[in-house]
């Protein structure tokens, strides 16, 4: 196994230009598990941890720019993230436990593309934009467009995530919802994980709703049909019931070691109901 240790972003992009098959290493919470299982023998690994440009959280006028090497602990502690993106702060506090949160990074979490990643529902409802760079240039991808399947992204060979931009939710949503359902309260992979934002009009009809679910499809899903259905409607037993059915039609959960498809269908609908009917926070 060969380890490359670039000291800057241009050096890192050059290293990937020369070794497009190399594996990027950030916090190591997933990569090191592969190494410990002997799956990285003979591979090239590029350690990104010395790239200063990809660290730090910058709060701007319209949103924040989070460097790809920012850890889950740094996100949780940052006052602007806590105030503007509470769902992301909550998700970061439930990823593994503190030792994992201290190492795992937002860029690594996205690049790893686990269908069960806990930061994904918040990033999906806040409509984050992922900035990727390669030696040939840069491009911005809407968050949902990053993912191609379980553990697969649409990032091109030699392309690395340099930052995630998250726009402030304006006007402020009336309701913000996050819930992770796992076997244990902490240090457990999600059976289902959900985030939602809700805006109401003066006449109490839904102005906009955004709801995203993880661990119930090959990639993170927004409940677009349910969101469209609810626009302009009041939240009644009937409209909520119909929207729950639409959520069920948009997901494709499977039976696996952590849960069953039937359980995930039921829980996904119930999480959506809880989001729509819980007391506003």
């Amino acid at each position, binding site marked *: *196994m060969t*380890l490359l*240790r670039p000291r800057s972003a241009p050096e890192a992009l050059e290293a990937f230009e020369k070794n497009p098959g190399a594996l990027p*290493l950030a916090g*190591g*919470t997933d990569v*090191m*598990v592969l*190494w*410990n*299982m002997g799956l990285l023998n003979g591979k090239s*690994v590029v*350690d990104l*941890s010395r790239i200063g440009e990809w660290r730090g959280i910058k709060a701007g006028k319209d949103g924040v720019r989070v460097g790809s090497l920012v850890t889950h*602990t740094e996100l949780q502690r940052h006052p602007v993230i806590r105030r503007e993106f509470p769902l992301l702060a909550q998700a970061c506090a439930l990823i*593994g*436990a*503190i*030792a*994992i949160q*201290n*190492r795992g990074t937002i860029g690594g979490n996205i690049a790893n593309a686990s269908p069960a990643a806990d930061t994904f529902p918040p990033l999906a409802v806040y409509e984050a934009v992922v900035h990727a760079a390669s030696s040939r240039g840069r491009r911005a991808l809407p968050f949902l467009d990053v993912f191609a399947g379980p553990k697969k992204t649409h990032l091109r060979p030699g392309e690395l995530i340099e930052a995630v931009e998250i726009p402030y939710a304006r006007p402020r949503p009336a309701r913000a919802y996050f819930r992770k359902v796992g076997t244990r*309260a*902490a*240090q457990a992979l999600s059976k289902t994980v959900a985030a939602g934002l809700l805006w109401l009009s003066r006449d109490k009809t839904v102005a906009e709703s955004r709801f995203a679910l993880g661990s119930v499809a090959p990639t993170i899903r927004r409940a677009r049909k349910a969101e469209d259905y609810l626009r302009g409607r009041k939240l009644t037993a009937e409209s909520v019931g119909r929207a729950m059915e639409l959520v069920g039609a948009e997901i494709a959960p499977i039976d696996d070691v952590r849960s069953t498809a039937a359980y995930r269908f039921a829980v996904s609908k119930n999480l959506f109901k809880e989001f729509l009917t819980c007391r506003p926070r």
Partner: protein
Amino acid sequence: MNLTVNGKKRSFGGAPFKRLIDVLREDFRLTGTKEGCGEGECGACTVLLDGEPVNSCLIPVAQAEGRRVETIESLASSQKLGVLQEAFLKRGGAQCGICTPGMVMTAEYWRRTGGSSEPGAVRNVLAGNLCRCTGYQHIVDSVIEALQRKGKGKREKFE
């Protein structure tokens, strides 16, 4: 490459992808840090990196270059145990002992940063440290005992 381990400058000339836990145990002969699962689930290998708890089985030593590592060996002298270790002894927080160094290092981070001694907060910070013997209650009691002693000075003897 150079790193600081338990306050001493150490250098390591082996493979840069060797895991921190293996460098600590095999090269520096600090065998207090234990390996449980080797995949970041159990927390047995927890050490402090620049004061923050991390799983030493998930860190290639290259990523610890120039940084400060603290292991369980740093908490006691040959004469005297640290406040957490005393509390674990008094409250029966250790049984087989494999999880104990990791538990104590996570608790040490919590103690040092002024963490709450509320049982819920203690359980939350220890969530990534698994124990298969104690059922956790004695561990939580031990950590609370140590946290409540913080105002009375580290050197005070336990009755």
